[in-house]
Structure formats: structure tokens, C-alpha cells
């Protein structure tokens, strides 16, 4: 569809756009973010500092940003996809050379007051780029090798850049988010089968190459896999996080120990309790009821994205919404699998709950784009 077609169909314009926002989604986001504030307040020992208040400010700024982006016509976003992608890749290259080192990995870059993690930004721009690509591509060519190779390269370049940072979690999310868009766009299932086979081979070689000069993960990443497979081998070292996280989660029981009564987090047994492992505090203090409620809220957010995608007639919007919905899902799926001991520990935050600026802003930008697609959908 072209700009003209949009004009022909009835697309809301001007201030009326606000009425067409997906207010249910906004409400859901506020609800989830509020649970995050509550937990950050709790893990700080009942204090807005140092985490809850900055997080609230960021969320407020994020909301404004989301509304602003929601007003931007979706076709403009589509036209800018290539530029956004290019800038993101350049930023990734920039952090490679000028980035700050934290936790043994190069991850962020300081731009004035803003501490930006380009890898986070990449998650949304990659999905945008792929959606735009498939919107442009003649659908009959979708499964032709050459035209499959192009998106593969588009995914591979940033994934590789993130992997050498090294940031396994984000690389994984990029890979899965990109794959989701390709899948939705209708790329033949044979390709996915082939990749799955290759992946199995790669995992096999991952372990066989360990200890040789050609090993492709860092030692600490190997150790994380080891401790995932059996956390009890190193209960005070690398396995400590996993064991303590599971104790916190399990000890919450049906209804939890009560707000601010979580002994595991309050007494500092929990690692990274305000970032990657914040879910364990929630599960400890509010129990199964609280944790499952959060899961339902997340489910609803994803449902809204996919439902909006299915309702949309615009291919770019459809693919974009599916891509963002899936990326969001992968975030929480990886994080929750990790804290529940179903996956190795990789640095993936829990969306809207984990403390962190880049993730929050990028998520709000993503949902801004979702809103834009929703608003500018022909009715």
C-alpha cells in the first residue's frame, strides 16, 4: 500500500488519533511497570532510592515518547526503517571501539547524559528493517535463496557484533526476533528445518571445541552452561545465583511471604535482585498468585500485539507487530526460564520490571511503533 492508498482509506488524523490509541495496551503496560516499581521499592528495603524513583521517571519519559511515536504515521516509520537500521549498526560498531566496559563486556556508550546500549536499540530497528524488507519484496520471491540470504545477512551482522561484545543474551534475542519476522513473512519452513539442524550441529561443536583455541564462547559463558546443567556442583560460586534464585522463588509458596517480607532478597542472598533476577523477589513476596498474574499480564500484552497484527491489512504493520510481540515474548521467556532454572544464565532483563534505562526506553519506543501501527491502520 502506498501513501495514496492510506489517504483513500479512512485513517484517523490530527488530534483524533489519540482516540484510536490502543488504550488497553497502555493500561497493561502501566500495570506491569507498576509491579516493577513495587518490586524495586521492596528490594531497596522499602525505599524509592536508588532504583524505584529513577525507574518511574524513565517510565514517565517513556510514556511521553511512546505517545509521540504513536502520532508518527506508520508509513513514515517504514520509510525510515533502513536509516534506523544503518544508524544502529554504526552505533554497535562505535561501542566496539569506544564503548565502556562493564561486567567484562563492552556494552554501552555515553552520549551526553544518556547511557545508550545500542544492542538494545538494535532489537527494534532490526525488526523494523526486516518488516520493511518483506513489505518491499515481491511475495513470490520470499523463499528464493538469494532473497532469503539478504535478511539472513541483515540479522547476522548485528548479531555478530553483539556476540563479540560479548552479550549472548541480546544476540539470542536478535536472532530469535529476526527469525520470527522471517517466519511470519512466509519464508519456506524448509529453511527453518535446515537452520534447526545446523543449530544442533553448532551446539555439538560448541562443546567439542571447548578448551581448544577455537572455542567460541568465553570461559565464563561455558561455566554458566555447566552450572545450568548442574548448579549444585558449585553452590558457592557460579551455581550460587541459580540456587538462591530458586530458593527465593520456591519459598514464596502459594501466596508469598508478603510485600517486603522476602527474606532471600532482603537479606541479600539474591544476586542481581534489582535487575535480571527481580522476578524471584516478586515470586518470593507475592507467591504463585503474584507471579502467575504477571505472566498473564505479559500474555495479554503479546495477545494485543498479535491481535493488532492480524487485524492490520498493511504488510509492514503486520510483520512489525508480530516481530515486536515476539521479541517481547522472547525477553520474558528467556528471563523466566533462566530464573526458574530451565535455561542457563544469560544476561536478559525482565521487560518493565528489571531496573535499566536502555531497555525501558527501547521497549517504550517499540510500543510506540505498535501504537502507531494500531492508530494508522485503515478502518
Amino acid at each position, binding site marked *: 500500500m502506498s501513501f495514496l492508498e492510506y489517504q483513500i482509506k479512512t485513517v484517523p488524523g490530527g488530534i483524533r488519533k489519540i482516540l484510536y490509541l490502543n488504550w488497553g495496551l497502555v493500561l497493561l503496560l502501566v500495570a506491569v511497570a507498576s509491579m516493577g516499581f513495587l518490586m524495586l521499592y521492596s528490594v531497596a528495603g522499602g525505599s524509592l532510592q536508588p532504583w524505584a524513583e529513577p525507574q518511574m521517571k524513565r517510565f514517565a519519559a517513556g510514556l511521553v515518547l511512546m505517545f509521540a511515536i504513536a502520532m508518527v504515521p506508520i508509513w513514515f516509520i517504514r520509510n525510515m526503517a533502513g536509516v534506523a537500521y544503518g544508524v544502529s549498526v554504526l552505533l554497535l560498531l562505535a561501542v566496539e571501539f569506544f564503548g565502556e566496559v562493564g561486567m567484562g563486556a563492552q556494552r554501552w556508550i555515553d552520549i551526553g547524559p544518556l547511557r545508550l546500549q545500542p544492542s538494545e536499540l538494535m532489537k527494534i530497528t532490526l525488526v523494523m528493517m526486516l518488516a520493511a524488507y518483506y513489505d518491499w519484496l515481491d511475495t513470490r520471491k520470499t523463499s528464493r535463496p538469494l532473497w532469503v540470504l539478504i535478511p539472513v545477512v541483515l540479522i547476522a551482522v548485528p548479531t555478530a557484533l553483539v556476540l563479540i561484545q560479548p552479550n549472548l543474551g541480546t544476540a539470542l534475542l536478535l536472532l530469535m526476533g529476526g527469525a520470527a519476522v522471517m517466519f511470519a513473512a512466509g519464508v519456506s519452513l524448509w529453511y527453518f528445518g535446515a537452520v534447526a539442524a545446523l543449530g544442533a550441529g553448532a551446539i555439538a561443536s560448541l562443546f567439542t571445541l571447548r578448551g581448544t583455541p577455537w572455542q567460541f564462547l568465553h570461559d565464563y559463558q561455558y561455566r554458566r552452561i555447566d552450572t545450568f546443567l548442574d548448579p549444585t556442583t558449585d553452590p558457592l560460586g557460579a551455581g550460587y545465583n541459580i540456587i538462591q534464585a530458586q530458593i527465593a522463588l*520456591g519459598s*514464596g509458596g502459594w501466596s508469598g511471604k508478603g510485600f517486603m517480607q522476602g527474606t*532471600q532478597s532482603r537479606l541479600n*542472598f539474591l544476586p542481581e535482585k534489582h535487575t535480571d533476577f527481580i522476578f524471584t523477589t516478586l515470586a518470593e513476596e507475592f507467591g*504463585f498468585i503474584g507471579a502467575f498474574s504477571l505472566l498473564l499480564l505479559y500474555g495479554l500484552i503479546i495477545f494485543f500485539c*498479535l491481535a493488532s497484527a492480524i487485524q492490520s491489512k498493511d504488510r509492514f504493520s503486520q510483520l512489525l507487530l508480530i516481530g515486536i510481540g515476539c521479541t517481547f515474548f522472547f525477553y520474558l521467556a528467556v528471563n523466566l526460564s533462566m530464573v526458574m532454572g530451565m535455561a542457563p544464565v544469560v544476561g536478559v532483563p525482565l521487560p518493565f520490571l528489571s531496573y535499566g534505562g536502555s531497555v525501558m526506553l527501547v521497549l517504550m519506543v517499540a510500543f510506540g511503533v505498535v501504537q502507531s501501527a494500531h492508530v494508522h491502520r485503515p478502518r
Partner: protein
Amino acid sequence: MRRTARDTEANARKVTRRALFLGGAQVAFIAVLGARMRYMQVEEAERYRLLAEENRINIRLIPPTRGLILDRRGRLIAGNEQNYRVVITREETGDVETVLAKLAEVIPLTAEMLDRTRKEMDRRSAFVPIVVADWLRWDDLAAVAVNAPALPGVNPEVGLSRRYPLVGDFAHVVGYVGPVSDADLAELEDPDPLLQIPKFQIGKIGVERWMEADLRGRSGTKRIEVNSVGRVMRELDRQDGVAGADIRLTIDADVQNFVQARLGEESAAAVVMDVANGDLIAVASAPSFDPNLFVRGISQTDYSALIGNDHRPLANKSVQGAYPPGSTFKMVTALAALEAGAITEQTTVHCPGFLEFGGRRFHCWKHGGHGTVALEAALKGSCDVYFYDIAQRAGIDRIAEMGRRLGLGVRHDLPMSAISEGVMPDKAWKRDRHKAEWRIGDTINASIGQGYVLTSPLQLAVMTARIASGTAVSPRLVRAIGDREVPVGTIPPLGIAPRHLRAVQEAMVAVMNAQGGTAWASRIADEAMLFAGKTGTSQVRNISASERASGVIKNEQLPWNRRDHALFVGYAPATAPRYAVSVVVEHGGGGSAVAAPIARDAILRALSDGLPPLSAYPANQRTTIETQQKNMKLRKPEPAAAESSRA
């Protein structure tokens, strides 16, 4: 590039199909997450809750206050002293080096102490207080408190530690405490968790060790909540322990002090015992040592000095030492012969100065002999030949039986370390021990307390008490544990004919109170406190025939460790016996010259309230005794405490 509407429709449907597939997969995965959550939080909740509690709650022991050890009149022998120390907490200190440097200006700190502090600080968490210096004087502690603003993170502290205010007086009886060693732990089947506490002290020897169970008490516990690095967040609840029981000994601290001082630097031991109930009034062993050195951890120099001393200050000679009793054994031989009916009090033996037997000549100590003597004269003059003769008539087995009845060769069970059983030999013993037949020569040697016979000063005191009282009284050291008095129990009769006992007792009175008695010089002049006793001089070397021919070498000409042991046993008042005493002075020379005067002073001290009155001594000795008393280094007697009080 244009697309047909149909194409678009088809594509949109394909996207929808695939979106629904993705959505379905996601719902499935969320269901898996939910199921896992349910498994952990509902089914396994109890297990995880337990683990969380284990994480959170720590049980700490509260060490109980150790029981005091008191003398028979309630005066403190072993107490708990406040140990002043200074601790430093890294996280409150800021610049550790500056603060330590400042602290060194306030209190004396050696480089070694500073080094140890730094090392300890590196090892421990920042919030753990580290001891910089302990055993400080009150002034030092006050100086630290005054300078507190300049010393952030430095705190004065008070702990309890064992202290023995009477220093060496009770070192052997009461012993000392020390830190728990691996050997201590290995000995116990189920060690009290208290013993795992760093710096916890338990009794190592003496009463401290053998009454450890009563003295230690039971630990209390407190449950505390800790965080992941072990910092205590709050106390949840506490159960107070039970303080150790105070132990009241039978010993009189003043008499003990007097006897210990009287022994001085001799290598000697003395025991004073109540003949009626067996209460040990004094159990002295010299030279002594300062048990406080061991509590604080004795230095290598001090320890080497104690080990290197040939007078063996660490040995508890009064119960551990096994000496040939010499002539003090003659009462046993006499009573055995009398009871066997082998002799009567009037039976006489002729002593020409030696006894010829089996081609060997057994000498009497008196070169010319004692002439014809009966029991009283034989004991009074300590005639060896008389006892050589009557011992053969009684036989060794009867003598040994009498010795055991009087408490020799028997282990007296007291809460003290290394209690010696001694040796009371008979035919079976020699067969067993030396795989040889008993010979008459052995009996002859044993009759005057030489040869195989070995006794401890404690056993000699028991023997004397039994002869004096006519009962089988046993020694006891503990008068009360906590509020519970230790009962004396019924004392069985000795089973010796009173007539025979009286004959021996009268002979022992004669030894001291008849002109020509071997201990005449050490008599008590006061009729009310009449002293009865027997001297003994036991050889520690063989006198060869050639030496005897050329004249026995005088003790003073021999090196110290080859001189004879001087012994004495006695009781007083002879008319109504109250106390028995035994004294052994290793390599002291003659019993009458060295041991008897000590025994007299000791028993007089026990009988009187304060220093022995000069009136009790023979008139011609009073000046000497007065000087001697003046020169004794005695502790100022403390008033008796009615109730025990905690330090």
C-alpha cells in the same frame, strides 16, 4: 511493483496463519512456565521454604560463665576475670593505617600485634571486629575511650577469662584451663558444640579438667537472622544457658599458702589431711608455677624454663610422685606382724648393726646397732634389724595386705591429674611384673620401705590418718558442687585390733616426745597439740660394700640428685588426732633433719588460726622459728567469704 488484491489477500492470510501459529507456540510456552512455577511454588514450596530458613537463621551459642573454684571457707581460687581488649572494625575505620598508627600512640602495640591485625583484617569481612590487643590494663582501656573521636572503628571491649589469684599455690591441685586442642576433641565421643567456639577454654589438668562437666555449665543459644555475608541483622530469640557450678574444695587456702611457702624452692611435696572425714587441708608440691601463664598461652621461653628445671615444677609430686617410703613404712610392717600374731608388743630382737642372711649382710642405719629392742624402742630408734626380723616372721603377703588396708598401693580417686597408684609388692606382683620368684631379701628390703615399695605423699598421709583414727578414712578434695554438699559417707572400720594400733601410736609418740627418738628435735611442746610421727630417709642409690667399709659418704658431699629423700609422716594432737601430715623432700637428706620440721610447721598451721604460735615449739627453738616465720613470703590471709560471689 504492484500487487493484485488477491495476492495481498493471500499473503495476509498466510501472515495471519503464521502469526496464529507463533501465538499458539507462545501460549504453550507460557503454560510451561506457569506449570514450572506451580511445581516450584506449590508442590516443592515446603522444601524451598526450609532452604530459605536455613539461609536466614543462624544459631549462635552463648558461652556459659565458668564455675568458680573456692577453698573450704569460700575464698576464690579460680575466678573469671574481665579481660580488657581493643577491637577494630574495618568498615567503620576508614583509613586503617592512620587509625592503627594513632592507636599505637595511645596504647603500647608491638609490630607483631599490628601485623597480626592486618592479616586478620584481610581475611575477615569488613564488619567483623578484630582484636588488636588484649589483656590491657584498665588505664589503657580508658585511654582508648578518651581518644575515641580520633579512633573511628576502634572499640574497647570486655571479655571473661580464667584467672588464678593465688598464682602458684594451687597450680597442681586446680590446674589450669586452655584453648581446646584437636586432641581434646578427638578424646570426646560427642563433643559439646561449645568447644568449637574459637578461644573457648576448657580445663587441661587438675580439678579444672576432672570437674570440667560441673564447671562448664550449659551453653545458651540465640537464633539470629543473618544476611548473605553473615552480618547479624537481628536477634530472633534466645535461650539462656546455665552457668557452671561453683566448686568448693576441702583445702584451706591459707594453710595451702603456708605449706607451699614453707616448702620453698625445695623439690618437695606435703599433704595435710583431716583424719576424721578425709578432707584434704593442703596438697602442696614445690616448686610451683604460675597457671595464669598457661591461660594466656605460655611463651616458649617460659615453657622451656619450666621443662628445663631439674626440680620439675610441672610435676604434681604430692599425688604423682612415687617414692620409696623408707622408715615411714615400718608401721605397716609392725602392724602386719602384730595382726598375724607373729610377734607381740613385747617380742624382742637383738640388733648388732646388721642382719646376716643367705651370705648377704643387711645393715642397720646405726653402725653399732641398737642392742636388744622391742616394738616401741625399735620404732623410736628406727631400728632396721628389728623390722628385717619381724618382716620374715609375718611374710611379704601379709605386709602387702596391711599396706593396702592402710591405703598404700591403692589409687585414691580424686579429681586431680596423674594420680599415682604406687607399688605395694607381694609374691604375685613380682611373678607378674618381673617373672621372678619372691626372695627373702626382697621382704627384708620391703620391711623398711625400700626395694620395690613406692608410695606417694598422698598415700602416706592416708596411711597415717588411718593409723591415727583406726578407720579406713579416704581422702576427699571436693566439699560442695554448687549448692550441693558432697556427703562424706560412712567410713568403714579398719579392722585392726585397737591394742595393736595403740602400741604403734604410742611408739610414734615416743619417736617425737621421748629423749633419743629420731624426731625429738621436731616435737611440739604444747601438750594439747602433742605430735606423733615417724621419720624416713630413703636411699636412691646402692651403697657398695667398699664404700661402707671406708665410711658411708655424707649426703652433703653427694651431687643433689643422688642424695637421699627425706620423709616424714605424723599426726596431731596425739591424744585426739585431728590432722595427719606427710612430707617428702626429694634429695633432702635425712627425714628427721629436713622433713620433720616442715611437717610440724604444717600441722601446727592447720591446728591454729593463723601462724603457728611460738609457744608450741620447744623453748630453745623459738628464736630460730620466729626468724623463719618472719622470712616466709606469705600472702596476706583473706577473710573467709560466706557466700560465693561472681567476679
